[in-house]
């Protein structure tokens, strides 16, 4: 028994010891970050006093590692941290005080952007906490300031001069109070007056109400009197009636006569009404002019038609668009300006009539051949005289235009001669290529103009082209600019402008 007991006892102690060791070891191991795991990063600190190897490294108060090593790097301290949580390159580390005993730990902010930190990388952002020493320095400064203040106070009040000043100040205050008192005293009569006025006003008000009450009493009395008068009158009437019953009988007779006359008048009225009824019946039946007027709906229909027609007319009229354009062209060869004034009446979008006044520097050229038969001369008896007359006068164009898709054809009088025209619209009508051919009888060849117009602003356009293509000596180039209004614009102008009385 003894031989078994000895090993058993020893074994018991050994097992207990081993169990205790393993349990304690496990417990204390929980408290630290696993030495083997994690990785090392470093940060450069100005001051690491209070930090030590194995000092805690926390994120949001949760331990994520510890200080692995602290070494000197120049005049700074290089602190190696062993952490087991991922950090980014914008991570921050700060030395924080755990207690007033000077115990410190490192507060990490893991960072959100940037590249992940690896083993041996540096945490570049180091925040500095206020150390007790800094606090003390601050306190020192504050104390110094307080001392300055007290010293200057002492200077001000401490000596006799200061006391004197203080007493002066007190005297001044006293004086000021006295002045205030005086002011109040001086104004006392005025204040009395004000109070008096107030009293008077209230008294007046009182009087007024009293007067009103009196008036009311008077009115009541009057009313009472009127009532008693009325009573008297009634009594008098009664007396009179009682006294004069005969006279009353006469009065009744008079009344009867009047009633009979009234009866007559009523009979006449009846007759009148009968007639009126008969007229109404006639009207109702459509007899007579008035009856037809009232009962026949043709008139109404006619009026309706009229209104409809005039409506259509007005619609047409309103659909008619008027365009007024003015254009000047500068002829490079002639160095002269040609002006146009165009009024375009456009009843439909694809159709318009154009009336243009043209002031052409070339004027109107006409030929006149005069043949004179003369016998007095030995020479050729026939004198041929050819005249070219150029008149500077307005020319007129009157054209009818019709648009097919992007092409508009024009026909009519162009600058006082018959002519044709063609416009090609491109780029949403902003660019217009046009040609006119006219004056078939003026020169050897008819006059053809070709030009392009570019509308660059709603109302403004520029033009350039060539004139009189087929007559070499007359061919000229021109550039121009113009302005164009539609009647919407004109309406706006006319309504804005003072209206002329028509």
């Amino acid at each position, binding site marked *: 028994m003894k031989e078994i007991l000895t090993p058993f006892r020893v074994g018991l102690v050994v097992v207990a*010891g081993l169990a205790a060791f393993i349990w304690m070891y496990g417990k204390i*191991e929980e*408290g630290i970050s696993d030495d083997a795991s994690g990785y090392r990063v470093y940060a450069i600190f100005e001051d690491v006093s209070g930090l030590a190897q*194995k000092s805690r490294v926390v994120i949001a108060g949760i331990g994520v590692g510890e200080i692995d090593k602290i070494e000197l790097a120049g005049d700074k301290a290089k602190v190696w941290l062993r952490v087991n949580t991922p950090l980014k390159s914008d991570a921050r580390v700060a030395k924080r005080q755990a207690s007033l005993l000077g115990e410190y730990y490192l507060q990490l902010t893991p960072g959100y952007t940037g590249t992940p930190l690896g083993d041996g990388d540096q945490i570049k952002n180091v925040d500095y906490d206020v150390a007790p020493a800094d606090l003390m320095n601050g306190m020192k400064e504050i104390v110094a300031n307080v001392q300055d203040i007290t010293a200057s106070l002492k200077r001000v009040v401490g000596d006799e001069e200061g006391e004197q000043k203080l007493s002066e100040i007190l005297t001044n205050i006293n004086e000021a109070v006295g002045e205030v008192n005086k002011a109040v005293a001086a104004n006392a009569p005025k204040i009395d007056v004000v109070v008096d006025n107030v009293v008077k006003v209230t008294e007046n008000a009182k009087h007024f109400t009293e007067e009103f009450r009196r008036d009311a009493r008077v009115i009541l009395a009057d009313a009472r009197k009127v009532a008693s008068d009325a009573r008297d009158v009634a009594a008098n009437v009664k007396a009179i009636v009682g006294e004069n019953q005969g006279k009353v009988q006469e009065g009744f007779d008079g009344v009867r006569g009047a009633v009979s006359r009234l009866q007559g008048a009523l009979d006449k009225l009846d007759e009148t009404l009968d007639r009126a009824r008969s007229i109404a019946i006639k009207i109702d039946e459509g007899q007579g002019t008035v009856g037809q007027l009232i009962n026949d709906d043709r008139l109404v229909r006619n009026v309706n038609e009229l209104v409809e027609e005039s409506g259509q007319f007005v619609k047409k009229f309103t659909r008619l668009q008027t365009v007024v354009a003015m254009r000047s062209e500068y002829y490079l060869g002639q160095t002269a300006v040609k002006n146009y004034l165009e009024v375009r009446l456009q009843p439909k979008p694809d159709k318009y009539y154009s009336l243009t006044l043209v002031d052409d520097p070339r004027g109107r050229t006409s030929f006149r051949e005069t043949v004179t038969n003369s016998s007095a001369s030995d020479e050729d008896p026939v004198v041929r005289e050819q005249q070219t007359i150029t008149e500077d006068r307005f020319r007129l164009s009157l054209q009818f235009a019709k648009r097919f898709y992007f092409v508009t054809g024009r026909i009519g009088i162009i600058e006082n001669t018959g002519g044709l025209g063609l416009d090609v619209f491109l780029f949403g009508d902003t660019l217009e290529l046009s040609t006119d051919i006219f004056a078939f009888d003026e020169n050897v060849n008819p006059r053809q103009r070709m030009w392009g117009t570019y509308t660059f602003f709603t109302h403004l356009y520029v033009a350039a082209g060539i004139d009189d293509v087929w007559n070499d000596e007359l061919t000229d180039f021109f550039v121009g600019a113009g302005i164009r209004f539609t009647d919407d614009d004109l309406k706006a102008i006319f309504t804005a402008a003072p209206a002329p009385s028509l």
Partner: protein
Amino acid sequence: MKRLIEAIGQRVIDLIEGIGRAAMLLGQTLAWLPRPPYRIRILFQAMEFVGVGSLFIVLLTGLFTGAVFALQGAGAFRLFNAESLVGSTVAISLARELSPVLTGLMVTGRAGSGIATELGTMRVTEQIDALYTMAVNPIQYLVVPRFIAGLVMVPILSVLFTLVGMGGAYFVGVVLLNIDEGIFLSKIYWFVDPPDLTSGLIKACVFGGILTMVGCYKGFYASGGARGVGLATTQSVVVSSVLILVADYFLTAMMFE
């Protein structure tokens, strides 16, 4: 004067001789350690004597050491409102220093002295010489089991000392002084690291070796009858205690510097 010098010289010679003999004993012990025959029964008896026999006194010491340390620490930390550090302070102190040293001293007082007495008695009653005649190496038979028991059991006792000591500290701190239990424990877990515990174990192991070797040495070389045995016992306790404290210093210096 001559006698004084002689006395001093003799003392020095004795001291050096003693160190030499102790070192030789240690060397012989280590030399005999791996050699068969392995006397397991004797080893267990030694372990029972050193470990089990000292268990109660060690646990009692540990409990009150932890308790009194917590009490004192709380009084001191209260000045800074840092009572939560009591647990970790006690734990670190126990694990690193107090457990091995106090366990070593307790076991010295109880088992080391016992070893010295036993071996001294065997020496003066010539039982050790009898072992020689029986061709049994007394070092292997007497010293080696005790030495092994010291090496093994003292660290175990030290661990139990720490555990019980922490129990005492917990009782005083949390139950009696109302320190926040969670903070108390978490600070222990945070501040106490495995090296604290293992260094304590190494120390305890060394102390176990010291106290058994000193006890064996003093008993083995005891002379002068019953008085000599008593002297050997006393000397073994004194020398062991001093050596433990001195060794503790050097071990601490080696481990933590």
